[in-house]
């Protein structure tokens, strides 16, 4: 009965009955996402040792692949669903106290479904099924971005909806193409036959899929929706969108490129797109005065770095990319969560209104500092280990061009450091702005339900930063899960 299928089925069933629970008692629904994600986290931990030995092929409807939909719970799938469950759990604990207004039961239903969509995406081994879970993820995030119902929220939600819908249509066209070419939707089966058609056809279908998934992954020309959406959503949703949703889009792109089309070298273009995304994201973040927009642009910068690492297309590069995915998910969730109550208390998203917070909200400010230092890549935190892995992978071949690109990456990091240090300095060393509330430390600090997830995230960031070995031993198998096309086909189809 224990099966990776439960990672999807159990939260989905809970999400379906959440509205029913909401009819009985609205308070009860607040605990549903946390319960579901705690279940997923436990189950993921139980499954991990087994899938490290051999990927678990989950068939549905009692038919062997490729004739029905199947899931592949490999090191990558289970590892990412563990990350989704962990961040999802912590953010849902935060949301218990944070989300008080509006249709609360609907918030928790949509939030849980967003996580179901992300989990389904990382586990599915069927192209169309991947798209279905992608749609669940996207549509629930469109609704959650506009949850507060204010003008900015609805506007950015509509913007996100339009761009996301165009992306989804492109994916659907691409899937139609692939099905026409290969007569199958199983990723392993497509991968096996991909060299039986002309490169032009492969390229066209791949371009549709990558562009479509690229909208959610927020790669450079396709990310106009992101700063608005991430900054006007409630902070708990910003944390999930930045921490999890973008990564799900990136995962889909990487799965399509590496596993289906079996790319073992990447065109220079991918590296350049990554670098450009990084630079544009960091530069735009530098000039922001709104703290949430700044964090959103910084997410774009980090995505650029992950794309750069994936573009190296080597085992160590992909390992570095996965390391960055984990470190960015943890750090960005921490930043959005700790900033959430600061904005709530001051009623303003301006960076200048956060000055002097270090004395009024000491724990939140300390944790914000930890998250910021980790994103920049300072040594005792997880971000250092991640960035270091990527840079070492880029310099491994000693190609002069890559060395030059690494220099640009480091320049981006300097910019990143500049704006984060500015905020951290403001938090701790500047006097609060005129007219701010008087010092009442005990009432001003965020409530316990928010401090617990914030402190846990900070603790994980420090712990993994000090002992990166607990994470890195899983990154190798996970990277091979993505890169080793032959093994993937072998596991799924048995040939």
């Amino acid at each position, binding site marked *: *009965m224990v*099966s990776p*299928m*439960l990672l999807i*089925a159990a939260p*989905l*069933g809970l*999400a*379906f*009955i*959440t*509205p*029913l629970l909401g*009819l009985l008692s609205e308070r009860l629904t607040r605990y549903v996402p946390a319960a579901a994600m705690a279940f997923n986290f436990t189950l993921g931990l139980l499954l991990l040792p087994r899938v490290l030995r051999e990927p678990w092929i989950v*068939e*549905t*409807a*009692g*038919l062997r692949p490729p*004739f*029905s*939909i199947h899931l592949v719970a490999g090191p990558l799938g289970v590892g990412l669903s563990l990350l989704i469950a962990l961040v999802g759990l912590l953010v849902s604990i935060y949301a218990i106290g944070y989300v008080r207004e*509006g*249709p609360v039961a*609907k*918030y928790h*239903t*949509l939030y849980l*479904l967003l996580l*179901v969509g992300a989990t389904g995406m990382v586990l599915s081994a069927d192209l*169309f*099924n991947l798209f*279905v*879970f992608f*749609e*669940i993820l996207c*549509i*629930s995030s*469109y*609704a*959650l971005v*506009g*949850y*507060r*119902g204010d003008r900015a929220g*609805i506007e950015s939600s509509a913007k996100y909806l339009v761009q996301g819908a165009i992306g989804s249509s492109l994916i659907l066209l691409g899937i139609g*193409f692939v099905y*026409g*070419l*290969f*007569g*199958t939707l199983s990723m392993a089966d497509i991968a096996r*036959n991909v060299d*039986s*058609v*002309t490169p*032009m*056809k492969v390229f*066209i*279908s791949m371009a549709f899929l990558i562009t479509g998934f690229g909208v959610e992954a927020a790669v450079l020309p396709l990310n106009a929706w992101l700063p608005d959406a991430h900054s006007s959503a409630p902070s708990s949703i910003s944390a999930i969108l930045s921490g999890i949703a973008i990564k799900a889009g990136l995962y889909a792109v990487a799965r399509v490129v590496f596993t289906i089309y079996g790319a073992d070298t990447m065109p220079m273009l991918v590296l350049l797109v990554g670098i450009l995304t990084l630079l544009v994201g960091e530069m735009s973040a530098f000039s922001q005065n709104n703290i949430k927009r700044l964090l959103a642009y910084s997410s774009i910068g980090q995505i650029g770095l992950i794309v750069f690492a994936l573009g190296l297309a080597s085992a160590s590069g992909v390992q570095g990319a996965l390391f960055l995915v984990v470190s960015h998910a943890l750090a960005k969730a921490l930043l959005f969560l700790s900033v959430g109550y600061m904005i709530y208390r001051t009623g303003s998203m301006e960076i200048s209104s956060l000055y002097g917070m270090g004395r009024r909200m000491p724990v939140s400010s300390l944790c914000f500092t930890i998250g910021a230092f980790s994103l920049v890549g300072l040594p005792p935190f997880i971000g250092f280990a991640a960035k270091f892995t990527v840079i070492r992978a880029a310099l491994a071949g000693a190609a002069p061009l890559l060395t030059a690109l690494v220099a640009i990456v480091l320049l981006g990091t300097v910019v990143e450091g500049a704006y984060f240090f500015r905020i951290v300095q403001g938090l701790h060393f500047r006097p609060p702005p005129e007219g701010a509330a008087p010092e009442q430390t005990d009432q001003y600090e965020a409530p316990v339900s928010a401090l617990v997830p914030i402190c846990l995230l900070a603790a994980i960031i420090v712990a993994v930063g000090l002992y990166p070995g607990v994470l890195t031993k899983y990154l190798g198998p996970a990277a091979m899960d993505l890169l080793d096309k032959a093994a993937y086909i072998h596991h799924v189809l048995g040939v």
Partner: protein
Amino acid sequence: MRRALSLIVLLVLAVGLASALRGPSVGAEARRASLIDDDEVNFGRRYNSRAVEETGASNVVASVLVTYRGLDTLGEVTVLFVAATGLAALLHTGRRRRSEREATPASLIVFTGCRFLFPLILLFGAYIFAHGHLTPGGGFQGGAIIASGFLLIYLGCRGRQPESKRLSAVESLAGLAFVLIGLIGLAVGGSFLLNFLPEGSPYALLSAGIIPVVYVFIGFKVGSELGGIVGDLSGAR
């Protein structure tokens, strides 16, 4: 300038697509021709030739939707659920602002006509989803027909609106039932959405195992969900 640029992009896309679509479209087909006996064929062909025998459903589309691509169907049901919930959440704030407007009651003829037609529409919708495994149609179509009955009620019998709590409860329970049927398959045969009921003889009403059961739940779910969307958009709930 912008218009010219978008025209150029469209042109490039069109040329690319046309060149890609030229020639035989099913590339893998030729390579697999030797393997046809070995089941390693195009999905569509296999479903057409084997579905009735494998699932017992005489409507091949139903067997594809509920059995072969059952997880996708669960996903589509969820997408609809997400859309309905998200719409209700977004309309929640707008609704409070709207002033209570008094609805003019419909004329006696419209009112009586709606009351007369509503049960018939429900019956027809139920017929469509209960026979999904035998004839064209199924849970989604039957559900849409049922929702059109609710639309008629919202338009014609303004005093007698379906209670939104009941719609929401039906929606939740039907979704849960779909997941539970899948889980029973997992518990019994180790495979999610396994067809664990006897297949029966094709073309009989009670045949095809779980397919009609799942379709009935989908019908309930889609009907109550679309009915709820209609209600939300008309500002009734």
